[in-house]
């Protein structure tokens, strides 16, 4: 007995007065609790800082500054033949439309009695986005009957003016800015007072394609959202049947031997393989060997399928395993074949778990960017991909990749848009995760 010498210390110890050892143990527990609270707090603070900075930078991307003024679409300029034939009207380039717009803007300023200061016509025109003439040209070519009429235009303001209304650009910074001058901002102040300039909700951020560095105000997520959606369709169509079939075979039908063990270990390992590895595989196999096009959502979908499959297989096998053997036994007992037992009883009961696993796998695939960089989805794509199935081979972008490309652009306005894109991506991810939780809550059965 080693503690015979220590034992007398305990004799006569009070139940209400904790002795030194109890106090030490209690203190250790308190410290551990505090550590736990601290760990959670650090996590929460990090989350708040992250979300706070993203929301702070990005929410303004959903509102955009517009300049509104009437424009007379002069038939003598836009349609020299006068037969409203879009094919012939295409000869007028955006430069021609730009001149028309410049005149209309100057006329609008004169009509409202706004003092133009010492600014040249070109400097006033610089307040308008370079996208504006292109939008007008598209609108006219889509509906040639408007030629000759006076229509109101809602044009984007240039990103610096937009930044001024959002507080990113100030009079002081404009004195040093090569792209805008304080005089231009003063004119903008007068135009705002006259109601020509207004900040409004910008649906274009979600629907328009990407834009070059000269017109960040026009850049939108349209092509990226569509590209991501196409990829998710490909992933869903391929990975759900393949994943479920593989899991059913492995879980219910396959013999337990060395081969199935090997396959199982490999699937578990594949789930942990860095995603860039799948990108390299896709580049070598799908693009270089099979000759599929670059930047295509189909290829992106195939890579993400490979990446998602292990996750789906693991989730599906877990939910198949969770169905009690008594269900199978009962089905087999009343004379069902093995296949009937699986498809009539086991699979429906496992379905909520399978769907949850699939949705979580899709959510991970949606946020994945690394493998897409290797297959050309990081490109500047301005044309919307066509309708599937052909559209699956058209070039497109993807949401996480769009965030990446925007953070690399030189113009500060793209910082705001990159954060806006992150918000959109987070909303999609939250929706998918919420859907998974709802499915699990509603349909999950406990045995």
């Amino acid at each position, binding site marked *: 007995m080693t503690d015979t010498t220590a034992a007398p210390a305990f004799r006569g110890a009070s139940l209400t007065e904790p002795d030194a050892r109890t106090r030490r143990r209690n203190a250790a527990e308190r410290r551990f609790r505090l550590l736990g609270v601290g760990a959670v707090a650090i996590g929460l603070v990090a989350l708040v800082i992250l979300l706070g900075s993203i929301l702070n930078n990005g929410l303004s991307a959903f509102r955009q500054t517009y300049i509104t003024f009437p424009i007379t679409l002069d038939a003598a300029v836009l349609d020299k033949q006068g037969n409203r034939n879009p094919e012939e009207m*295409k000869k007028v*380039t*955006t*430069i021609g439309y730009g001149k028309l717009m410049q005149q209309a803007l100057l006329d609008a300023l004169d009509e409202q009695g706004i003092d133009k200061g010492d600014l040249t016509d070109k400097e006033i025109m610089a307040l308008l986005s*370079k996208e504006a003439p*292109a939008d007008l*040209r598209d609108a006219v070519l889509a509906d040639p009957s408007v030629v000759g009429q006076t229509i109101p235009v809602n044009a984007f303001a240039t990103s610096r003016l937009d930044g001024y209304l959002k507080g990113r*650009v100030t009079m002081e*910074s*404009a004195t*040093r*800015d*090569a*792209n805008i001058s304080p005089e231009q901002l003063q004119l903008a102040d007068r135009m705002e007072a006259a109601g020509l300039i207004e900040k409004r909700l910008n649906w274009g951020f979600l629907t328009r394609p990407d*834009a*070059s*560095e*000269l*017109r960040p105000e026009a850049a939108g997520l349209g092509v990226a959202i569509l590209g991501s959606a196409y990829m998710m369709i490909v992933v869903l169509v*391929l990975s759900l049947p*393949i994943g479920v*079939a593989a899991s059913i075979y492995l879980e219910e039908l396959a013999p337990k031997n060395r081969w199935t063990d090997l396959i199982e270990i490999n699937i578990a390992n594949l789930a942990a393989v860095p995603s860039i590895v799948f990108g390299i595989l896709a580049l070598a196999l799908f*693009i270089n*060997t*099979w*000759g599929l*096009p*670059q*930047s295509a959502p*189909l290829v992106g979908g*195939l890579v993400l*399928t*490979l990446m998602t499959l292990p996750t789906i297989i693991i989730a599906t096998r877990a939910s198949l395993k969770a169905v009690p053997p008594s269900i199978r036994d009962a089905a087999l007992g009343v004379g069902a074949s093995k296949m009937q037992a699986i498809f009539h009883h086991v699979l429906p009961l496992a379905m909520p778990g399978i769907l949850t696993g699939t949705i979580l796998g899709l959510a991970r695939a949606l946020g994945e960017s690394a493998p897409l960089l290797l297959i*050309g989805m*990081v*490109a*500047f*794509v*301005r*044309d919307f991909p066509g309708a599937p*199935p*052909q559209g*699956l*081979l058209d*070039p497109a972008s993807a949401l996480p990749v769009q965030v990446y*490309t925007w*953070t*690399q*652009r*030189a*113009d*500060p306005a793209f910082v705001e848009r990159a954060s806006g894109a992150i918000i959109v991506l987070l909303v999609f991810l939250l929706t998918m995760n919420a859907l998974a939780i709802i499915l699990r809550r509603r349909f999950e059965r406990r045995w």
Partner: protein
Amino acid sequence: MPARPIPAVLPAAFLTAMLAALPAAARDNIQISGSSTVLPYATIVAELFGENFDHPTPVVEGGGSGAGRKKLCEGVGEGTIDIANSSSRIKQSDIDLCTANGVTGVMEVRFGYDGIVFAALRDQPDFAFTPADWFRALSARVVRDGALAPNTARSWDEVNPAFPRHEILAFIPGTKHGTREVFDHNVLLAGCKETGAYDLYADAVQGDDDAKKKEAETRCLDLRTDGVAVDIDGDYTETLARVRANPAGIGVFGLSFYQSNTDRLRVYTMNGVVPSVDSIASGEYPVSRPLFFYVKLAHMGVIPGLRDYVTFFLSDEVAGPDGPLADYGLVPDPKLHETQALVAAERPMEPLSQ
């Protein structure tokens, strides 16, 4: 030639079924890849091109000059790109790769110049640099009392008594950047010769003049490794972020990047010349480089719109002094009309002279 899919596994079978459902269509968009310095210019032209022509907007990808040229030389056919953007001249190794893969006619198009500027945050002190100052600040060894000695300067006033007392910290492009070559050649090597270090290096070598020249040029580019010169392997946004985190630092940027961020950055002169589109076009500002793109002539007339795109890119209204590219910071090529003639004739490039 793409191999036929092998339906060895289930996914392949699915894919074959899906592909069979797709009507085979010829590629109708131009595909461009390469330098991230040229990328903004190429996207601006692509955007204008898509807007004003009946062809789809070209798909433009970054990834680096070397990677772009390698992709161009992968072969001829729809699966390969049409144009490689490059911020440095094509190398003999690329041409050899092209020849090996059957890409014979490659047209070299120089469309303008890019200035490389030294800039710091707005509130930093004033400097008027010369290449010699940069060599004395960043080189591994400097000339002291007529001999080469390890560089120990910590403050700019040790480099040049005319400068204020200010910590030396420089963010320079990493070695894989095309910008670094220009920095090495036009700043460090020039400074090396100016300070006499070049001659000291050359004298120390035994052998003929060629060996001396080669050795001296390599030694001149040795940078100090004590953390004063920081290589940036990312793009200029990373350099800007580093300069903002270390306000004492001076960064190396492209002229166009600086022009988009003039409200935050101040630019320094080199040999007393302020970098601008004009001073670079006239050749007064010493640190600049030509920008190129390389066109695969075998795709001309096969990929719709390729000829139009190249002609449009080089037109006066796009690449000229009043065009959108100059607005963004491109230094227009004074010999643009020669390049236009070259493009009109679709003349493949001559073998490299070296």
